[in-house]
């Protein structure tokens, strides 16, 4: 087991090197540099000013030198400083956005799991019933509607017309003057729309997955046996079938770990949430190389660990895999 772990971890090093190098290359090949965006079509910016800026950012060096310098810093645990004029450490910027995105995503995921698994189980155990069909239609409608559109409609109805919920942001303007309870309630109110919409549009995948995996299990011989033993349908479904049906869902959970730090650009833009999606998107647009590379690297590391974790969880829930 330990040697397996060590082997997997050792394999990460060349993988990460490759990922970071390709990302670096792709970014450098994209037209426009951070300096261009500061000086393009600005008649007051002279060629000398451009050159100075390029030198300041180290963009006058050959690409392999730039990559080498970046790698050197990473090895020492330094993600560098943003190219944006605030010149703040990349780590600070990520540290601001990450908790917000992480919190929202964990909330989304919890809500989705909390709804999708029961829906899946119920649909499977009552296959072709009216409730099965109804939930199927519901989750597919949620899945098929573009989330930004649903979000705007919900904002119009609940935010503007009825005035029940705030439209965007994470806190009200007068947050600081609220009581502790008021502050908590204010935060909850701000979360309802973004989390609710994400859950609604994300429900379909997982609940259908759960349903089909459950159906699969319910067709197995040992379920037949359990029923033949005279167990109640309840015991059959929840004690015998569910554990096995959850296996594929665990894989999905593992794979969704890296997704937890990647915010949705669209949702964050519409709800004016300063999360990772927007940070990454604006950094790409501004050609803020250090921030882009920082986020890419963290994303890559998390993806690799997420995969590893999924594999380990497999072993944990499936005794058959432990023997090998």
């Amino acid at each position, binding site marked *: 087991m330990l040697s397996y772990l060590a082997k997997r971890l050792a394999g990460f090093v060349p993988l990460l090197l490759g990922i970071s190098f390709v990302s670096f290359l792709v970014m450098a090949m*994209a*037209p*426009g540099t951070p300096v*261009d*965006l*500061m*000086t*393009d*079509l*600005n*008649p*007051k*910016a*002279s*060629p000398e*000013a*451009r050159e*100075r*800026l390029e030198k*300041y950012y180290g963009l006058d060096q050959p690409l392999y030198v730039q990559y080498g310098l970046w790698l050197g810093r990473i090895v020492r645990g330094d993600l560098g400083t943003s190219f*944006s*004029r*605030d*010149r703040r450490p990349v780590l600070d*910027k990520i540290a*601001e*956005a990450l908790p917000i995105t992480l919190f929202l995503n964990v909330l989304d995921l919890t809500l989705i799991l909390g709804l999708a698994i029961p829906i899946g189980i119920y649909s499977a155990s009552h296959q072709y019933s009216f409730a099965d069909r109804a939930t199927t239609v519901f989750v597919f409608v949620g899945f098929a509607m573009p989330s930004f559109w649903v979000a*705007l409609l919900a*904002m*119009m109805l609940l*935010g*503007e017309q009825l*005035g029940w919920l*705030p*439209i*965007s*942001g*994470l806190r009200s*303007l*007068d947050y600081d003057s609220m009581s502790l309870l008021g502050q908590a309630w204010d935060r909850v109110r701000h979360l309802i729309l973004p989390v609710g919409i994400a859950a609604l549009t994300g429900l379909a995948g997982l609940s259908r997955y759960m349903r089909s995996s459950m159906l699969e299990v319910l067709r197995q011989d040992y379920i037949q046996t359990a029923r033949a033993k005279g167990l109640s349908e309840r015991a059959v479904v929840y004690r015998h079938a569910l554990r096995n049906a959850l296996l594929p869902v665990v894989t999905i959970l593992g794979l969704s770990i890296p997704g937890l730090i990647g915010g949705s650009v669209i949702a964050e*833009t*519409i*709800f*004016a949430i*300063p999360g990772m999606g*927007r*940070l990454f998107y*604006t950094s790409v*647009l*501004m*050609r803020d190389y250090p921030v882009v590379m920082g986020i890419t690297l963290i994303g890559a590391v998390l993806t690799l660990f997420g995969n590893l974790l999924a594999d380990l969880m497999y072993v944990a829930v499936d005794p058959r895999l432990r023997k090998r």
Partner: protein
Amino acid sequence: MRSGSGLAAVALALATCAAASSLVLLNGCGDAGRGRQAEPAQRAASESSPKAHEAEATPAYGDAIVFGTIGDGSTLIPMLASDSSSHEYAGYLFDGLLEYDKTLSHLEPRLAQSWEVSPDGLKITFHLRRDVHWTDGQPFTARDVQFAFDTIRDPKTMTAYAEDYKQVQSFELLGDHDFSVTYEKPFAPALASWNSLMVLPRHLLEGKDINETDFSQHPVGLGSHVFESWERNTRFTLRANPDYYRGRAHVEQVVYRVIPDESTQFLELKSGGLDMMGLTPLQFRRQTSSAAFDRDFRKYRYVSNSYTYMGYNLDNPLFQDVRVRRAFTYAINKQEIVDVVLFGLGQATEGPYRPGTAWLNKNLKPYGFDPAKARALLAEAGWRDSDGDGILDKDGKPFSFKILTNQGNDQRLKTATVIQKRLRDIGIDVAVRVVEWSAFINDFIDKRRFDVIVLGWSLSLDPDQYDIWHSSKTGYKQFNFVGFKNAEVDELLEKGRRTFDEAERRRIYDRLQEILVDEQPYTFLYVPDSLPIVASRFHGIEEAPAGISWNFPQWYVPKASQKYSITP
């Protein structure tokens, strides 16, 4: 927000708004204004009648105003900023020495109470106010100006705005509140450049690395407002400066909320989460006319400070014949474009000066929409439909080319599409291509790989347009990218910058416009209107050619209608 003040208005003047920040670009910066920057006005008639609204209210202090911004700023040191939000934020904290008045025709005192230009135009002497203090209590002196001047010229300072100040030969300190600058050659835009140089507190910044200092995040200023707090990508807050030398601002708090999506901004406005924003023509015409809107908001409409044009690559043999360029201008119905693209909220234009300002030559003869004349001119230039396929040709080659414009600006794309149809009507085969901004600039504009472009310029308050039309400015990354070369224009541009006399300058730039209209290196298309909307509890708003924001410190909310309990 602030009228013509600051680098935002002048240093970025002439730059396309897209260049100011790619965030702005993404959201289609052709929708000029958006309530983000001061916009000049001509058409003083606002839609609802503010006069009646002003009648009974008494000025009061207190309350807050909430603005929406598409992107957050990055630094509060104006000379380092390269995005429009940063310039806008910093505009509250710092002042220039002088500023254009609300009619945009004269410079009036700010930190300098008076100034003299020597008769030969080489030396400008400034006399500063003696009653100005930084908000930490230190007096403001000529050394602070000198410090800002030295800093912006320092090669180690990562600024894109040093050019105007490099023309200065010497800076001479004459006392605590007096100094003079000497130029090598007379330089008419010089005076206005002292509007854009925002002073910096020497006592806090001397000996520090300006590029890395924390001052850019926690500044001390002397402007109408004081920095209060800054939550990244969420909120930027300012308080009125109680000791502002031009009188304390009435609205106590200014809040910028970062809301990147324009639909969200509009919903926030409707539900009271924002107090002001710039409307799109569609919103102005169709979505803000209900009784509720009339009660809660007032809309304003005035000429913006940018124009959209169609530029020809003059190195391309297709467009070297002036008859072809004139034919195109005749074939395009500019009013139709204004009606379709801007819902009529703009005006057709003939030249590169802001309608309604003194610099616009009022005797320019519009081409008008005349497809018959366009066909005749093309025939004269040798273009005929000899193979009967509906497309004009010459020497066996059909007249066919591409119009290029940048992605993210819906108005430009629509404009190009209308033009495509009108040119097809006279037998020209046109394709429209949209390219992402960076690629558009680097791969097409800089390398001159385009036939025709649809693009825009912001207009500066000084009439000097040397960088755009002079034949020496056709190099890599320079701004005469259409390759316009005209000896008389060169001479006029050189003379215009060396002359301080206004009447003489007017003659020079009048002639420049005549030549441009005659030569048509661009087909000048339209100037859109700025369309801000403001919550009706704000009083004291006065529309002027400079827009509505020029007297922002005088805006107020009567005690009874104050919404936020923020008092001085």
